[in-house]
């Protein structure tokens, strides 16, 4: 299991496009940018809808079974290199990309927490958890899904 407790992560610096995402994460809610014209969820945030070029975008909660963050591992890497000493204690660790059930096409980065890094596989079911970094920033993170997915 990767040792995360000694890791000092770079802290996200929200901007005009991204602030609602971090405000929601602080409340323990996963909100993504959603096109008000075609309904598409996207991440990372962008100036226009990546599907229909509309500019009317709002952050909305992504809900699934009332949890708001069930999905699958879309891709991952296991990091062994210790170029950045702040992450050295966690090596080897799994950095994963997650596609949420209710936001296909939106790709969220995270780490696979509460499991050996060898559990990271494309297609594994995961669910969001929230990791508080400081009073302003809470990181959405992922662990293996505990509930079976709804059919």
């Amino acid at each position, binding site marked *: 299991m990767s040792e995360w407790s000694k890791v000092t992560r*770079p802290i996200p610096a929200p901007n005009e496009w991204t602030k609602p995402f971090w405000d929601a994460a602080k409340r323990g809610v996963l909100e993504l940018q959603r096109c008000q014209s075609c309904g598409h969820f996207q991440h990372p945030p962008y100036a226009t809808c990546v599907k229909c070029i509309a500019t009317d975008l709002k952050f909305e909660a992504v809900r699934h079974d009332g949890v708001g963050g069930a999905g699958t591992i879309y891709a991952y890497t296991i990091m062994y290199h210790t170029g950045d000493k702040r992450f050295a204690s966690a090596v080897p660790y799994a950095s994963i990309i997650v596609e949420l059930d209710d936001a296909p096409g939106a790709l969220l980065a995270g780490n696979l927490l509460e499991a050996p890094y060898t559990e990271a596989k494309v297609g594994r079911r995961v669910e969001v958890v929230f990791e508080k970094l400081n009073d302003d920033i809470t990181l959405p993170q992922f662990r293996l899904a505990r509930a079976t997915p709804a059919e």
Partner: protein
Amino acid sequence: MWENRCKVAISGVGFSKVTRSAEIPLAAHALTAVKEAVADAGLQLSDIDGLATYPELPATGHAEVDGISIVSVNCMMTMLKLPDLSWHIQVGTTNIGGAVQQAVNALLAGVCKYAVVWRAMHNPRGTYQNLPGAYAQGAAQFTAPYGFGGPGQGMAVAYTRWLERHNQSREKMATLAVTQRRHTQHNPHAYFYGTPLTREDYLNSRMVAYPFCLFDCDIPVQGAVAIVLTTADRARDLQPRPAYLAGYGQRLHFEVAGRIGSLSNYMEGGSSSAKLTWERSGFSPKDVNVAQIYDGFSASVIYGLESYGFCKEGTALDFIQDGRIELDGELPLNTFGGSLGTGRIHGLWHIIEGALQASGRAGSRQVKDANVSFVGASAPIVTGTTFIFVGDPY
């Protein structure tokens, strides 16, 4: 077909010494490469009237200092003091292949006669790819907090998706690393010239960012390479046999920065670029005698082979087996050793090798009867420029 096919040629190539660390300022490397390329073409420096480059330092978290960590057009202009200089450009979106394409356009437009393009790469002290400091700005705010640093990890995540979706194993990549290292032994300019690599070396090497081990990553070096381009009619008056440009293309697809792990970004980037090159040249993948495909990270070759149309998606690691990419194989690949053999000089060296093979100037690594020479000069995701050179104009 493109009405301008075979109207521009590469007539000279040049190399600086490639070293692991920065012993002399990068500008000196670039100057050596440019002077060599001009001499190779049989020209004088004063004949050069066009300059183009892509100067970016891909290492993150290091300062760009002109002449030391990058060599811009301004820097080259200051050094050379060219009496007849009439055109220059520095490109942004398309990497070094775009600088070559702009030089081609300038020659076709008649605004210069002999253009030089160089790529100079610096290896900074310390860690090559640094995560941001205390705060992660811009697109990195969604990746760096999770330990995603440089492009290696970005490419590694797409590679796991490719491997697991297609039920493939990373061990098959040993063939690429070992074959390219063998090609490297025919290229005295390469960093790993004189250093062999075995399949066991590859399979036992330390993991960097799974699925990438050490030998899936090109080694950061200090060095420069350069070419001279001119119009076909002028090229025919020069001593080296010209390598005629039959067609080129550039990526027409881009996904939002920070959206890492997406395979479509690679596949659509590569296929959109190659489609232009196939259409303009009139050739198709089966016509190609020799190919150079950018390999800064080994998986780039997979995305290149598949998106350019050399093999079906999901099959590239099988495609490279059984001697197919050897110098006498069906598709000799990265015959100069690739970036994995030369060190990290980006794609201009791929373009150089494509030209040398087309013009029969590749020495002991020359592919027999090579005429149609394909180049994918950068990873399809970022920049995705493609080229075909031929020895016989048509």
